[in-house]
Structure formats: structure tokens, C-alpha cells
């Protein structure tokens, strides 16, 4: 119980830290409205269900229980059994159901309680959802959204903490997005539902409670964020930090600490992993000449590895003053003990070390 309280309080501390930064450093229009990530997702799903009668949501515990992480709170009460479905416990089953429903003309949002459990359904996601449009030569589209929390949570250990960004980003036929802020969540989820291709939306459980400023534009029912477009959360001229999901917050924190040392970081929030916004990263590196890629997942074949490769293959290579560095999770299955878990994930100090190494400063 004591550990649980400590976990919750540290998560809240982290969340409030992010709060401060989101208010200071976000480049969205100034606005008085604050919205938590979970409410952003909830409102997006609600509005899409309202907009199109073909849209429906299914998953474990999404209906009466309001969602395992309360993301779908109130939706079943409002829309009923026809639009919000609880499923038996079989990911391969309900992913298959959702794929079939999409093939027959509906627009399902399929929730995985966490993406760790999506491994049980991965054949349906990859071999059916991702590849069918291609294999059928355009006869069978699969307009489906797979969403749920991805990556590390807090104290849930090896089988509940894996980041699947690389796994899904690898496969052609899928669109993969990884939001950071509330605005990202609203825009990307809406785009995902309206997109004709299968989309994997990788959320983050620890971010669900974090509140962000939301512009009026982002609150509109037709607010869409296009896939393949990253967002520059913070401009800078000395070094580029690129990340997705929670790691963006880490970069913003590090950037804030570096102001004191006279280092101005440019922080890029990828938003989309497939397609990746090469152009924004390349242009930034051509400006700053230094790049550090930060992610929560493992380094081997990770998102950072793809970023490094794309820089090597582009004209930005000629503008590098230092090799591209990566800050990633430790190459171990996630340990349980809090102290070990903290060490297994990237911290602000890891980002600072990488920045200083890249810039050759102490």
C-alpha cells in the first residue's frame, strides 16, 4: 500500500512537472482551457461516434466499467450496447471481430487494454488488417483503429511495460501514431477514425492524467492532425531532440534545465511513427547540426535507430557536427522494484548527458 501511494504521488509529481512545461513551452495558441489526455481521448471518441453511425468501440471493460483506465468513461451510458461493446477475454478474437466488421463496412475502434496484450492478436493486426488491402488488390479495405496504452507504466514489470512502437512501425500497410499532448490525442484519434487505412494509436498510461492547454481550434469537432507531420514543441538553435510520446516531456524538461547553461534545444514531437516526418527532422538538423533521439523503448531496432538511419541517408548527414546519439530504455525486460524501474528507463539526466556529449560541453 505504501509503495502504491509512493508510486501515485511520484506520478502526480511527474505529471504536475509536465503541466508546468506544457504551459510554458507549448507552441499552441494561448488559451484558458486545460484538458487531461484521457478526456481528450474520451471527447474525440464521443464526437466521432456522434458524427458517423458506422463508428463503434469495442474492447475489454470499455462499457459499464468505463474502461480499465477510465478513458471510455460515460460512453456506454451515453451510447449504449450498439456503439460501445464489452468483449470476452480474447484479443485474437475481438481483434478478428473488429477486422471483419471493418471489412464489412463498419468503422471499429478496437481497444487493447495495453499493447502488451496485442501480441495475442498480432496476426489479426499485421496479417489481416495491415496487409489485406494490398493482398486483395484494393478490393477489401480495413478502416480500423487499434488503440491503447503502450510502453512503461509504473510498477507493472516485464509483461506489462513493453513499447511496441518499432514492432508496428515496421509493417507497411499500417499507419502508426504516438501522441504526446491532449491536442495530439484529439487530432490523431480523429484522423485515425476517419482514415481509410488501419491505424495503430500508441497512447501512454502515465500521461492519461496529465492536463495540457488546449486551443480553441483543438476543441472543434473537426480538428484533425495529419499523419506524417511532426510538431516542433520548442524551437532552438544548438541541438535537436527528437522523441515520441512521454519522452517528449522528458526532452522538454531537459531543454528547460539547459537554458541555464545557455543551450537552446529544439524539441521535435514526432506524433507519427509511420509515416515518419523525415523533412522536419532533416531541416532541424541542418539548422542545429546536433541530434539526440530519445525514446522509452529498447535501443535495438528502435525508433531512434530509424531516425539515425534516415539522417545518414539524407543531406542532413553533411550538416552533422557530431554523431547522432540515442537515449533509450535499458536492454532488459522491465524490472518491478521502483529503484530498478527508474534506472531501466531514460531520465532527464540521461538526456542531459547525451546533449553535453554531443555538444562537447561539461
Amino acid at each position, binding site marked *: 500500500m505504501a509503495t502504491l501511494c509512493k508510486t501515485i504521488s511520484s506520478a502526480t509529481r511527474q505529471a504536475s512537472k509536465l503541466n508546468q512545461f506544457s504551459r510554458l513551452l507549448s507552441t499552441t495558441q494561448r488559451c484558458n482551457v486545460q484538458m487531461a489526455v484521457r478526456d481528450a481521448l474520451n471527447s474525440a471518441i464521443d464526437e466521432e461516434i456522434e458524427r458517423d453511425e458506422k463508428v463503434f468501440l469495442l474492447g475489454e471493460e470499455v462499457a459499464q466499467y468505463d474502461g480499465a483506465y477510465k478513458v471510455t468513461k460515460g460512453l456506454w451510458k451515453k451510447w449504449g450496447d450498439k456503439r460501445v461493446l464489452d468483449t470476452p477475454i480474447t484479443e485474437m*478474437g475481438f481483434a478478428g471481430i473488429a477486422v471483419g466488421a471493418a471489412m464489412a463496412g463498419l468503422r471499429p475502434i478496437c481497444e487493447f487494454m495495453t499493447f502488451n496484450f496485442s501480441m495475442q492478436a498480432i496476426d489479426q493486426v499485421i496479417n489481416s488488417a495491415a496487409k489485406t488491402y494490398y493482398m*486483395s488488390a484494393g478490393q477489401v479495405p480495413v478502416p480500423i483503429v487499434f488503440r491503447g496504452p503502450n510502453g512503461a507504466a509504473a510498477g507493472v514489470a516485464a509483461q506489462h511495460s513493453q513499447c511496441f512502437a518499432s514492432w508496428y512501425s515496421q509493417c507497411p500497410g499500417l499507419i502508426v501514431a504516438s501522441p504526446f499532448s491532449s491536442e495530439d490525442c484529439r487530432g490523431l484519434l480523429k484522423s485515425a477514425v476517419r482514415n481509410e487505412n488501419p491505424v495503430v494509436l500508441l497512447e501512454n498510461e502515465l500521461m492519461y492524467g496529465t492536463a495540457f492547454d488546449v486551443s480553441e481550434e483543438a476543441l472543434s469537432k473537426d480538428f484533425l492532425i495529419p499523419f506524417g507531420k511532426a510538431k516542433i514543441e520548442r524551437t532552438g538553435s544548438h541541438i535537436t531532440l527528437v522523441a515520441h510520446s512521454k519522452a517528449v516531456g522528458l526532452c522538454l524538461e531537459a531543454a528547460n534545465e539547459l537554458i541555464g547553461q545557455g543551450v537552446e534545444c529544439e524539441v521535435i514531437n514526432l506524433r507519427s511513427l509511420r509515416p515518419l516526418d523525415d523533412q522536419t527532422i532533416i531541416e532541424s538538423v541542418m539548422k542545429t547540426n546536433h541530434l539526440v533521439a530519445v525514446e522509452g523503448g529498447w535501443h535495438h531496432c528502435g525508433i531512434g535507430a530509424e531516425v539515425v538511419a534516415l539522417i545518414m541517408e539524407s543531406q542532413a548527414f553533411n550538416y552533422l557536427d557530431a554523431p547522432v546519439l540515442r537515449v533509450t530504455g535499458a536492454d532488459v525486460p522491465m524490472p518491478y522494484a521502483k529503484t530498478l524501474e527508474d534506472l531501466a528507463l531514460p531520465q532527464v539526466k540521461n538526456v542531459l548527458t547525451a546533449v553535453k556529449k554531443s555538444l562537447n560541453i561539461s
Partner: protein
Amino acid sequence: MYRTVSRLLRIGVPRASCNSLVRTFTVSQARCASTSEVDKPNFPGSKSKFVSQPFLLDPDDMEGIPVYRAMNRDGVFVDESQDPKFDDNTILKMYKDMTLLNTMDRVLYDSQRQGRISFYMTNYGEEGTHIGSAAALDPKDLVFGQYREVGVLMWRGFPLIQFIHQCYGNCKDLGKGRQMPVHYGTKDFHFVTISSSLATQMPQASGAAYAYKRKKNGLCVICYFGEGAASEGDAHAAFNFAAVLDCPVIFFCRNNGYAISTPTKEQYRGDGIAARAAGYGIPCIRVDGNDVFAVYNATKRARELCISQSRPVVIEAMTYRIGHHSTSDDSSAYRSVDEVNYRDRSDNPITRFRNYMTNRGVWDEDKEKQWKLESRKMVMKAFAEAENEKKGQPESFFEDVYKKMPPHIEKQMNEMKQHVKQYKEHYPLEHFQPMS
């Protein structure tokens, strides 16, 4: 007391007897010093009654689910009431579709052996399951197949040459050369493109049926699968979901005795796939798969139930796989040639149907000889035409990864076109449609 009386009335006990029965019942209960209300199990998970001795249900003690057969091997209806009374045209179409399929199978199997196509799967012995079931469906009912249901497409009118185009992966292939042979798919005929992964089509069929239920379009979904594929976890999920969500889907199992080399006795211990249905709360019919009429009647009945009550139904069609699993298999490695020949001679759906037609007077030796020649000619003509078609445009393989081609793929496509144009003498471009 009223509930018990009505229950007895429902099973046909006359009212006077009901009252006296109930009185006796209540008295004997009183002797046990408890009332029926208190003694009824009230678990959320099951609706049943208590027993005072352990009730061990051993399936080994149970008889298997019976096999419905309408027409015997001599082509005679065992029970005249089961004759669906088809007209001559329907009978002839059924026979011709089965035999045309058989002829096409032989030609395409041989063409693989000759190196003309890379792979093929025949339908020998199972033609009855295809034609019987397809004839009982609405042409717009959505079909999810496994890979051995070609007759369904044939019945619906898919042009003969289109099958061969797909096997060759040429420019006329609806699948644009993306898939291995026999992976047919056609939106026009409501036949979802075949996917190699076994049983993944099963929960998809449940999901599609759910979508159809919501659309209220008066159609159902039919999902074909083999008894081997039914071992997959996807099958369990498909059955469970279809039952829980009231999906109008017919699960049609072709139990043909083998899953490549695995015989049914190594595939399952229970009474086939039909016996599993009750476990999910799904009604089932087991049918003689080599009897076209039985398959037709069973599918018709299942469809009515599906549509009227929005419930799934399992049909298990018992049949035998006369051919090899595919061209990559030689079944003499695991079953005797004698066994296969015996099955082919003694219980072939085509032979049985021909016997019926002969008895009915619409077929004879001469017609058989004539049709054999004619059907072979049809196949060979289509075959020659398909074989001579060019392959599609080389750049077409970059299409359909996404609905709209994204810039990075367009870039790769242009790079390829550039490269091939520059080194065209190194590429067999004469076999392809010209690049744009």
C-alpha cells in the same frame, strides 16, 4: 406451482395430469424438508438444477451427433419429403459446376507439375459441400473461405478464366498478382479474398455478421473452414463471440478427414466440430457432405435460423479429401493409395449426383461423354488464353499498400521505373504490360 404446470403443459402433459403430478411433486418435496425455491442453484454462470450424486458427464458414453443424409449412394432419396424438388436446369447446373471444377482442378494441378504455375490446391471429393451450400445461399451473402471452396465461386458465376488468371498472376488477375494461386477474392461475387493464415477468417466472419446485423440487410455471412483449422484459438473466439453477440453467421466446417497429414483422430478427441457448438450455445447440424441435397437442405435450414433469429449455426459436413493437401504434398506418405481409391469409388459426391440424374432421366452415357469433352475444351481454351496474357505493369506492386499512395512509396516506385528504363535490356519486359 404455476411455473411447473406450464412447463408440463408445454411438453404435452394434459392439464388434469399436470395438477395431480404437481401435487405429488410438492408433497414429496415436503418430505425432503425443503422447498423447490430454496433448492434451486442460483449461480450467475449457469442455469441448471441440483443433484445429490456427483454427475460426471463423460462424452465417451454419448452417441455421436447423427449424420443427416437425404440421398443415398445410388442416387435415391431415402425419405421423399427431403427432396427439394429442383427443376432440370438447376440439377444440370449443379452437376456441370461440380464436374467443370473437377476438370479445371486436373488441368491446373498438372500445370503446376509442368512448372507453369507455382502452386495449386485441388477440391477433389468436396465438390458437393461447395455446390450444395452455395445453392442455398443468397448470392449477396458474404463468404469467408479457407482455400478449398472453389465450387462456391463457380456456382455464383465467377468466370472460369478468372480462376486461371489468378493462378497465373497476370494482368487480368483481380488480385493483381499479389497472392499465391487459389487465393481468390472478388467483391462483385461477395467472396472475401482468401488469406493464408488458418482460421483468421473465422472471427472476421463473426465481425462481418455483426456488421450485417446492424445494417439490417437481410443477409448472412458464411464461414468455411476445415476440421484442422477449427483447432486454432481463432475458432474458439469466433464461436464464442458469434453466440454472445447474436451474429447471423453460418460456420460451415468441411470435415474431410485430414489436415495435411494429420488425421482427425490426432486432431481432436471429441465428437468432431458439431459437438463443440452446444458448448458455445450454438445450434448445429451434422450432414453427409457428399450428398448435395443434404448439404443444400441443411444450409437452407441454417440460413433461415440465422436470418430469422440472428443466431449463428454450425454445419459440419462430413466428407473426404480425395486429393493431396496441395501440390507441395504427396499424401501417399501418410495414407494408402488403396484407401483413397476406395473412397473415390465408393462415395464420390459427383458419382452419387450422377446416379440421381440418371435415375431421373436427365443424364446418360452419351451426355456424359459429350460433357467431358466440352468441359475439357472450355478449360483448355480458358487456360491457353490466360497463359498468353502478359503480367501486369511492373510498377503496380507499389499500389494498394495504403488507400492513397504515400510520397515515400511513390519515390521508390519512380526510382524503380527509372532504373528499369535505364537497364531495360536486363529485364524481361516483353512478359509485362508496358510501364507508364
